[in-house]
């Protein structure tokens, strides 16, 4: 069906982003990020099994600036997706779905994900 040429009423561009909209799309974005990160996780396991030379290259790549940025990103993605995933599980029980509650839990998840990521790197260092 060709409906590409039809005019669209303004939708995304006209909204002031509520925080719940940000947490929703961030859940998907962090999920996609971790799907890519899964390749790297398997790469770590596989290269360790292959041998020291290949493994050294993997660690070298991860120790680069880009590698470190990606690792911090994946750690944040994990703690965000975990926190917001638990929020989804609570919703599944029918609780916390009022507008005010959803906004409050959105901010809670954002703060929790940052705190958990900071704690992770604090323990790691």
């Amino acid at each position, binding site marked *: 069906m060709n409906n590409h040429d039809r005019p669209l009423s303004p939708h995304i561009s006209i909204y002031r982003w509520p925080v719940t909209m940000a947490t929703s799309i961030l859940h998907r974005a962090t999920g996609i990020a971790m*799907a890519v990160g899964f390749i790297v996780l398997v790469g770590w396991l596989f290269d*360790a099994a292959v041998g020291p030379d290949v493994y050294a290259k993997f660690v070298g790549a991860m120790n680069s600036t880009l590698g470190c940025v990606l690792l911090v990103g994946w750690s944040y993605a994990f703690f965000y997706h975990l926190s917001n995933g638990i929020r989804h*599980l609570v919703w599944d029980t029918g609780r916390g779905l009022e507008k005010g509650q959803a906004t409050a839990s959105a901010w809670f998840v954002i703060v929790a994900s940052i705190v958990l990521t900071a704690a992770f790197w604090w323990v790691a260092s």
Partner: protein
Amino acid sequence: MSLRSPLGRVLGLGTAKDGTSHWWGQRVSGMALAVLGLWFAWSLATLSGFSHPEAVAFISQPVNALLLLLLSVTMAWHSYLGVQVVIEDYVHSHGLKIASLLLSRYAHVVLAAAAIFAILKLGIGA
């Protein structure tokens, strides 16, 4: 009066023929990954180092190997379910959508198989 057959109602599979299995699988794998993921994050944060001997010692330790196996397989499953929904939402061309879904499925199976192979090789010792 409902036009649905009694059998259809009992099976609860709906028109897509798989009912709530996708949604439920996401919850089951998600809850498992909350535990396995936290264990893995803690393990990485407290690992003495990432040299080859240290990594091999960690992966080959039996309890770690078992948990890594569970983590890899569950993550492949959860990731596949998630990527599937993303493809279905954003890829509108029918052919490209089917191709992307197939590619994603194969890729996730390959990743899970590679992880299982690596963990078993190190865990059993070769």
